[in-house]
């Protein structure tokens, strides 16, 4: 049988925010409180469930080229993208492009052990919020502590922004990646562009 999770023709791919690219560009704020929102559609994403320690963890680490993070908030760069900790036996492996994930190798690494390797590339989409005002924008609708002391670059948490459940990943300084389920992407984009608006206006205390 054919593998329904194999990649298809790139030209036929669509991201959930493709039709909003103009609106996202128009929402960009420049100046000292700059902030911009961009969509990063079609990133290969893999859900991993496994016991992190023991031989399975070691085999998975070998496939990935790096061990999986073991604590809440941690991320790890691997040969196949960044692994985000989601739970004590759960990670999301997010690639920087649409290249296929090493699903077969991961499956083999998992072997008969409890766990799961699932292609979820389309389950979520990625939005990137970047700029000195990015944290201010997020703090309008995101409860966890985003202060760099508590949430420095390289960390990721499952949370909600503007009532939308998502994974929030502080991917670099002043740069946040938001990974909502695809169905929420358009609503989240509306929420974020609405929240960004004030940073292009005169500053009020």
């Amino acid at each position, binding site marked *: 049988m054919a593998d329904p999770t194999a990649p298809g023709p790139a030209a036929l791919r669509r991201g959930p925010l493709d039709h909003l690219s103009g609106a996202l560009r128009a929402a960009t704020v420049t100046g000292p409180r700059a902030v911009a929102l961009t969509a990063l559609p079609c990133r290969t994403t893999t859900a991993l469930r496994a016991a992190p320690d023991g031989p399975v963890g070691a085999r998975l680490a070998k496939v990935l080229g790096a061990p999986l993070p073991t604590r*809440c*908030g941690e991320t790890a760069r691997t040969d196949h993208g960044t692994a985000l900790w989601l*739970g004590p036996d759960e990670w999301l492996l997010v690639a920087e492009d649409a290249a296929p994930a090493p699903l077969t190798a991961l499956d083999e690494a998992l072997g008969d052990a409890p766990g799961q390797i699932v292609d979820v590339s389309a389950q979520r989409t990625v939005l990137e919020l970047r700029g000195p005002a990015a944290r201010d924008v997020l703090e309008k609708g995101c*409860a*966890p502590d985003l202060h760099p002391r508590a949430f420095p670059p390289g960390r990721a*948490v*499952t*949370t909600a922004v503007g009532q939308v459940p998502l994974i929030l990943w502080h991917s670099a300084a002043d740069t946040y990646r938001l990974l909502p389920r695809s169905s929420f992407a358009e609503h989240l984009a509306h929420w974020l562009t609405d929240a960004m608006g004030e940073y292009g206006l005169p500053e009020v205390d």
Partner: protein
Amino acid sequence: MLQLTCPWCGPRDETEFHHGGQAHVARPADPAALDDAAWAAYLFFRDNPAGPFAERWVHSLGCRRWFHAVRDTVTYAVLATYRPDAPRPGLAVARPDGETR
């Protein structure tokens, strides 16, 4: 706004969790062997103390793990949180009636 310490994720706002009722209530091993009253007791009857209560929570908006908490239902103080495979911690809590649990 309670703050609960998820055993895996640390302290988080109440809004990330869902309450799951009394903890340490095992499903009967053989429901068919129970009479109607015993089955009803499992289905519908739960402790509801005013004071320390061992209860289940799930970190819905986080790691999605279930865990247990002992929380005082009067003061809302969270006295302990622990993994579901752990026994209820022995907390010596003075009760208003003088009884110690």
